[in-house]
Every structure is written in structure tokens, then in C-alpha cells.
């Protein structure tokens, strides 16, 4: 039985990751989900979140993706992210400031405002960035 599968993480500015992995964890609009080998053909949109990749041997790699689409087709997974960054490249203080700012903005908004969805996205991205930069800091 195949225990690994091919993952490709691509953004408009290039291929970020390409290789065999054991497990991928991402968050869609319905919540977090994991993908293992031999997953059924599947498409989901992604919300801004941390994308966790477990490589064969147990090493875990993380990227913060700013939304996109995940597809599993014939056992291979493609993640089309509009942006991806490594936790090490994130400035934690700036990310936390962004999170506070987006949180204040959204608290003052009604859900019917046209900018609500975009602001919510910004908040989720800021939250994911702040959290991811925290975990990388702790592991050093």
C-alpha cells in the first residue's frame, strides 16, 4: 500500500514545494482536514491557514497560505495558493499588530457590508501568520 503521495504547492510566483509526503493538513471553509495517500478525487477551496506537511520520516514542514484551492486527483494533490510563506519569514510582532487591527475592524462591521468577507479573510490570514510564527519561535 502506498503510504506517500505526490504534493505540489504552487503560487503565482512559482512552485513552492514538490515532492512525496505522508500527510497534508489544511483548512477549508468547513474546517480543518487532512489528506493521506489514496484519497478520493476531491476539490476544496481553502481559507487563509497554516498548511502542514508531514514528510516520510516524520519531519513536519509548515507554510502559511493566503487562501486558494486544493485538489486531489488520481492520488496526487495540488494546492493552488494565492500566496505562501514560511513561518521563519514572518515578523511575529507585525503579524500580531495586523491581527489586532483586522479584529478591531471586523468588530465594527456588520456582516452585510460588502467588505466584510475581505476583512474576515485578512483577519484569518493575520491570525494564521501570528500563530505560525509563534510555533516556529518556540521550536528554536
Amino acid at each position: 500500500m502506498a503510504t506517500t503521495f505526490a504534493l505540489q504547492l504552487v503560487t503565482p510566483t512559482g512552485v513552492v514545494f514538490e515532492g512525496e509526503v505522508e500527510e497534508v493538513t489544511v483548512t477549508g471553509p468547513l474546517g480543518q482536514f487532512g489528506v493521506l495517500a489514496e484519497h478520493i478525487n476531491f476539490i476544496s477551496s481553502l481559507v487563509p491557514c497554516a498548511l502542514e506537511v508531514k514528510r516520510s520520516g516524520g519531519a513536519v514542514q509548515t507554510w502559511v497560505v493566503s487562501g486558494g484551492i486544493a485538489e486531489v486527483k488520481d492520488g496526487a494533490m495540488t494546492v493552488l495558493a494565492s500566496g505562501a510563506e514560511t513561518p521563519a519569514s514572518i515578523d511575529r510582532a507585525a503579524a500580531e499588530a495586523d491581527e489586532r487591527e483586522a479584529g478591531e475592524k471586523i468588530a465594527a462591521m456588520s456582516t452585510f457590508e460588502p467588505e466584510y468577507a475581505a476583512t474576515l479573510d485578512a483577519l484569518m490570514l493575520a491570525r494564521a501568520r501570528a500563530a505560525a510564527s509563534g510555533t516556529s519561535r518556540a521550536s528554536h
Partner: protein
Amino acid sequence: MASLKAIRRRIASVKSTQQITRAMKLVAAARLRRAQEALVASRPYSHALARVADSLLTSEGINVAPPEDAAKAALIVVIASDRGLCGGYNSNLLRAAEECRRAAEREGLSVGYFAVGKKALDHFRRTRAPISAQSVDNLPRLGTIGLARKIAARMLSDFQSGAVSEASIVYTQFKSAISQRPVFERLLPVARPERPAGAPAAVPIDYLVEPSRAELVPVVLRSYLEAAVFNALLQAEASEQGARMTAMDSATSNAIDMIASYTLEMNRARQAQITRELMDIVGGAEALRG
């Protein structure tokens, strides 16, 4: 004939112009290389996205038409440069923009431009063309995903609110460093992917779709539009640098030719002066002897 001093001054001025054009050529060449690399790097994303969009948009009859009561209007995004000195790059592009406008007007649509780049904005202001939006001084680089996102968001919101019934983009397609072609493409409403005649229809793949097709399609549509705009921006950037490189190369060789002909003129003038002085001396000596 101009005086020796005037010619020398002119040579010095052409030389400094030549230095500038040569430097600009080198800068354009470096930027061109970077733009080409970005263009190559963006390809895996567009290919993967086209595959997903293709299987999703063909697998079910989804609504890609504008709202019923949409205004008969078109948004035309024109991607020109912020700076000049790039040969016929902008004038060729703006001619294509006018052509795109005429084509839309023939279909009874009123046109609003989205001017990207100072040269497009200046031109539309001068010709009193309707400008719906603008983005200028996109320095240092035009080909950024942020700008693509901004343009795509505007196109999509105008289209979905019914303010326009179609949206097009005019940009310069990059073929090679010396060959660029202005093109216009209609991005909205989305055209169904065309199948080459005789090719078997793609077998729709059975996907498990989350959260639902109805919610996923707008996400795919937005990504698709962003990728298309981003690609146009990158091509425009590469074309601009290619055009500038060619223009600066010919400016540099013109300067070399000018320096050569001025040098010849200068040598002639100097020789004439020497001859004249010699004649004076000889004439003076003859006069003393006599």
C-alpha cells in the same frame, strides 16, 4: 562650417547621451531577464489552475453570464508603462486599446477604461476618453500579484454588480526580446474552453467538492481572473523592458555614428585651421622678405 570649439562641445554632449542610453540598455536587459524568469515561474500555477477550472467549469452548467439587467457597458483594462523611452511600445499598445474600444462600441457597449501606467492615463486624458479607474507609478515593478489582485477585484465586482456586461484587457504580448505584439482579450464573461475539432471531449472527473459547487465556482473564477491578469502584467513588463532595450540599443548605435561623423568634421575643421595658420605664417614671411 561650425567652429572647432562648437563641434568639440557637441561631441561631448553626444558622448554623455550615449553613456546614459547604454546604461539604460543594461538596466532594461537585467529587468527583462527578471521579468522572463517571473513569467516562467508563473506557468505551473496557471497550468494547474486551468486544469482545475476546466474540469470544474465543464462538468456542470454553471452560470457565467452577467446579471440579466447588466448595463450595456464594457470595462477595458489597458496596461501601458509608467515611463517612456521605449520606442513604439506605448503608441502601439494605445492603438490596440482604441481598436478594442471601437469593437465594443460596435456591439453597442459604452466603454470605460482602467488605465494602468502613466502613459495610458495621460493618453486617455488627452483624448478625453472615459476613465473608470487608474493605477499609475507602479514602481519598481508592474508584474506583482498585488496589482493583479486589485485589477481582478475591480473587474469582478463591476461584472457581478451589473455595472458592466463584459471586461477585457489590453496588453503587449511578449514573444521575444525583439518582438512584442499588442493584443486584447475578453476575460469576462468567461469563455468556455474551446476544444480543438476532432479532439475527444474531456471526460468529466467525478470530484467530491467542498463546500459546494456553487460556492467553489466563484473562488475558482476569482483565482482564474487573477492569474490571467497577473500573466498579462508579467508579459507587459517583459515587453516594456524588451522594447526599451531595443530602443536604447539603437539610440546607442546612433550616438556612435554621430560621434564618428562629428569627429570627422572636427578633424577637417582642425586641418583647415592649421592650413589657414600656415598660410598666414608663409604669407607673413614672404611679405618680410619682400
